[in-house]
């Protein structure tokens, strides 16, 4: 019984003051979206399904940045550093260990842990040095740019870990995909239907988990810190520890993205930590609406799809459009385009209801 009440008390945190969407209507919509996403592979061809997994891969990093920036108020420009660290760690581990006995899953966990440890070390120096918003952004950006340069010059044969060559700017390839050990033959998660469902389940779990996290005591404290760090400190919270915790969780999600991406394409390059790569998560999260998980999720998906469409039809202008989108968002809809659209629509809705006398 105690366990049951514990579980229900966690489940009530799925909705709360820090997240948009509550009540029967929202969860009905949620179920509808999940059902549509689950049914999608039945109607689409293999390439599109694999391509959708590619979009899903990035959303983890976006949700992590949403937690750090939107909820925590610390602007990190260098999430791609953790993406790259985890991606390379996964590559090195799986090339050395092989893909038997579920070792790739172990490599996934280990790679995410490595990125979390790196985030903890960097975060310790930043947050315990009480680095404010602006400096935090440029130090994290510097870290990812230097990581890119470091990996780029590892082309020579002397740069290897075990049997895994780092390969410099050519990028590291030929690592095995994620593989689930299964009686009757292991299931290799190629970018296809099986990987689609695995990633979708992971995405739903992370999304719901983050909803619980931000509505819990921890989430309320980090929002309090965002609103006013001094007040939070006067109330007795160690601001530095909460900021560090947020940073580690968010960066681990960037690491998870890195592992999934590396396993998805069996390939990772140093460019994934470069200037362009580092700017894209900022665009996704800012355009979607950084202060809410749901708007970030949909915003990221929309921008990713739009970006890919642009790259296909007018390749070189895609980045210009992304830059313009970022500037416009900041100027016109600082809370995010998706978030603004949602609040506008809900305002209309309530006004309409009030006019027709449904609301007492």
């Amino acid at each position, binding site marked *: 019984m105690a366990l049951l009440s514990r579980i229900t008390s966690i489940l009530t945190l799925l909705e709360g003051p820090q997240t948009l969407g509550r009540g029967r209507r929202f969860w009905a919509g949620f179920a509808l979206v999940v059902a549509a996403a689950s049914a999608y592979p039945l109607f689409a061809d293999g390439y599109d399904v694999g391509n959708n997994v590619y979009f899903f891969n990035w959303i983890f990093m976006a949700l992590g940045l949403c937690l750090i920036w939107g909820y925590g108020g610390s602007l990190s420009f260098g999430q791609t550093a953790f993406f790259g660290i985890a991606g390379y760690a996964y590559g090195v581990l799986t090339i050395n260990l092989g893909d038997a006995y579920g070792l790739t899953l172990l490599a996934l966990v280990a790679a995410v842990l490595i990125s979390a440890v790196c985030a903890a070390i960097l975060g310790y120096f930043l947050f315990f040095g009480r680095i404010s918003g*602006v400096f935090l952004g440029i130090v994290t950006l510097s870290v990812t740019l230097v990581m890119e*340069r470091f990996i780029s010059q590892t082309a020579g044969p002397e740069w290897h870990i075990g049997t895994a060559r780092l390969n410099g700017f050519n990028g590291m390839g030929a690592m095995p995909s994620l593989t689930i050990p299964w009686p009757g033959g292991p299931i290799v998660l190629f970018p296809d239907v099986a990987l689609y469902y695995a990633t979708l389940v992971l995405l739903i779990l992370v999304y719901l988990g983050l909803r619980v996290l931000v509505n819990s005591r921890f989430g309320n404290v980090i929002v309090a810190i965002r609103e006013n760090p001094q007040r939070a400190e006067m109330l007795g919270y160690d601001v530095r520890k909460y900021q560090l915790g947020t940073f580690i969780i968010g960066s681990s999600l960037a690491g998870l993205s890195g592992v999934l991406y590396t396993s998805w394409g069996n390939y990772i390059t140093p460019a994934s930590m470069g200037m*362009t790569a580092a700017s894209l998560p900022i665009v996704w999260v800012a355009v979607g609406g950084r202060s809410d998980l749901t708007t970030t999720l949909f915003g990221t998906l929309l921008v990713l799809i739009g970006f890919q469409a642009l790259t296909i039809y007018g390749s070189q202008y895609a980045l210009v459009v992304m830059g313009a989108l970022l500037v416009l968002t900041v100027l016109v809809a*600082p809370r995010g385009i998706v978030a603004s659209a949602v609040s506008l629509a809900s305002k209309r809705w309530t006004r309409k209801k009030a006019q027709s006398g449904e609301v007492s």
Partner: protein
Amino acid sequence: MDVLYSTFSFLYQSGDAFAFLVLSACGLAVIFGMMGVINLAHGEFILCGAYVSTSATHMGLPLPLAIALGAGVAGLIGMLLERLIVRHLYLRPLDTIVATWGISMIATQGTLIVLGSTMQGTGTPFGSFMVGNYSYSVYRIVLMGMALATLAALWLVFTRTRFGVLARATIQVPHIAQALGVNTGLIYSLTFGLGAALAGLAGGLYAPTMTLVPTMGSAFIVEAFVTVVIGGADIFLGTAPAAAILGVVKAALTSWQGQLAGQIGMLLAVIIVIRILPRGISGWILKERA
């Protein structure tokens, strides 16, 4: 004699690193000191200065004039962007950074589309001289001189001109300055332009020594960021000493382990320094004084 030669070599390398750090960071530091904002399009103003001055040299303009032109164009574009975009974001410093990053993306990719993936350089002028067994570029010595001259000029501007006095008043207490009749909007605009012009100057000065590609700005920004973070908000008490210290660190690590070690070492130094001196060198010096 050998000791003398290697001492000269080390001093030359430190001076070279110092000049690079000062020139690439001072534009960033001017804007940061003024508005508490980091201009992430800084690298693209450097790019602008480099491209404009190189094109001008190709058209036959003498190098000093071409560099001045590059700085001027970058400054004008800076003022224009301040009017159009940055002005609306003063109350939201973090959003300003994000917006300048958007500008940076547009500028880098736009340059690639319009001008192609590379531009022909002009080659380093002035030739070289020998000390011991090594030859040194005269132009690098000129750059060191220019770094010192830039610092001196900035000091004169901020302490001896009317603009400097008004700018410092605006930095200290903006609304009081405004109440006393200072056109703070204009001051902000001019300061942003000055920062952009300094970036353009760095671009123009280093253009003859570099490969000109649309992403060349990112070769400067890590160093510039690091110098400003260590230095803090004041150019003379912060950026200059930070550049001197980092220059020596970078030169030592570079001659020991190569260029990459110099950069990584600098970054690690920064991460450790901010743990000890969160407000940078200038914050530390000013606290000591008070």
